[in-house]
């Protein structure tokens, strides 16, 4: 697997545009950010109702 993975990589590597798209990355990190916001405010709410 490891070795074959590298061979296929050499075969498959093609020229790509310089500014390759990172849209998937943006969506992924935004998902992380939203997850953090939601969980943080959930615990903050718990703190407030217990105060």
């Amino acid at each position, binding site marked *: *697997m*490891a070795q074959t*993975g*590298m061979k*296929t*990589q*050499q075969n*498959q*590597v*093609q*020229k*790509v545009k*310089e*500014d*390759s*798209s*990172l*849209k*998937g*990355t943006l*969506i*992924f*990190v935004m998902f*992380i950010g939203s*997850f*953090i916001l939601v*969980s*943080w405010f959930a*615990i*903050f709410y*718990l*703190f407030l109702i*217990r105060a």
Partner: protein
Amino acid sequence: MKQSNLALQDYTEIPEVQISPKDGKLAFVHISVAFFAFLLGILGGLLQGLARGGMIQLPSWLGYYQILTAHGVLLALVFTTYIIFGFFFAGMSKTHGAFSDGLRKLAWISFFITTIGTVMAATMILANEASVLYTFYAPLQAHFIYYIGLTLFIVGTWVAGATIMAHYFKWRKLNPGQPSPLFGFMATATIILWIVAGLGVAATVLGQMLPWALGYTDEINVLLSRTLFWYFGHPLVYFWIMPAYMVWYLVIPKVIGGRLFSGSLARLAFVLFLLFSIPVGFHHQLMEAGITEFWKYVQTILTFVVVVPSLLTAFSIFATFEQTGREKGGKGLFSWLKKLPWGDVRFFAPFMGMLIFIPAGAGGLINASFQLNAVIHNTLWVVGHFHLTVGTTVVLTFFGMAFWLIPLVTGRKLTKFMNRSGIVTTWLWTIGMFFMSGAMHILGLFGAPRRTAYTTYQDHPQALSWFEGIFASHVTVALGGVILTAAGLLMFYNFVYLAWFAPKGETEFPITPDPDDTPHTPAILENWKLWIGIAVVLILFAYTIPIYDMIVNAPPGSPTFNNLIR
């Protein structure tokens, strides 16, 4: 910056050689100690889970808190430290050339110092003379040999760190004006952090606990010792996570057939860790008297700053995945994900670790959030949290690493069968942790305490409810623990097979080609004196006034309490 990962132009001066067999042996011995400690540590964890769930009763000669101490010391300190130095010695040899005979000798000396310390501490735990947990809070008192053992352990790692730094700075001297190899840069940042942080624990152990345990002083300043411990305790978690990040930044891009997205950003992240992961210890002491709200809040802010390098890392790593996937012909918003080598344990295990780091990081932010800490402080939530961070993110990353590092240093090959076994291990670990850590988090929100043996608090309904939930129950924790133990035993088998039984052959040390921006690395990033200087200033800012206050306005100190732990 160019963002192509094409491996066509090759700036790299790193020759594709195996590491020197002598350095390989050094790394292998470290990794072996790590996995034997791991085996004992997880068996301790199993007993704890079952005992606390009320499913078994421990024999009278074995204490719950004794096993808890062993579990923490063996896994959080011994396993992590040894496997990290195994990785560092191998990686430095690969990227900076073989160690000189002198330095290698020094590394062996460090190994023996650390190991003698480990054996001393472990003996005291076995003798039930040190059931003070791995945080050893005063004024509970362990046998003085336990403190000497811990001191030797820390000093040994300093010597090992000095070896690695000497090797790194030698390279820099021979290659003036060039950006240093990323591996050495990141290892050096980690080790500087470790040494600066270790000063705190050395100060409390040598200056406070040892004289007190030996009877030279009658009293100990409890708050000061806790503060010095946590000055060390939080950077300790970065000492675990930074080597895992090194695998993500440097190894994974090569495993997936690409190239790291940006070297400068990787260096910047590690500089930020060095600067901001030390002056933050108060976020472990938010619920405690004797430290003002103001200084707690200051350190809360600094804690939040140290989140930034992890934000950078999340982007860099995923961008590396996306670029590589697209260069391999992946299209669409997410369908390039299919181009990643999901069947390769060297990628898959660390990847699961990365995924788990999302809830782990969110939980960490909550823990450090000043007054919000009251909701979860010292509850099982915290235990659930660090079983995600160090217990899954770091551990799964090191598992993935073990599948190439062990055969590399033993002159063997990763077989298809082993790869599959590794994937199974990863799934089992993830599933077990989902049950165990998930239940711990929820139980913690209901108030269930951490570090507490089986108890129903005289059948108080609230305490009984912690055994009765469908998911949120000590029984679920124990079930998860059983699955984790199975995964851990399988991993130990993987280790034994890769170390002594796999077929002989050559194994690649996967390390990313230099990122495209390497020639443009800002020189300031390599200015260690500057970064150490700023780190010291930040530490002095965050700690001088509160520590001065703790010493000058200290209440009468505490005598020894060594009868409570037996």
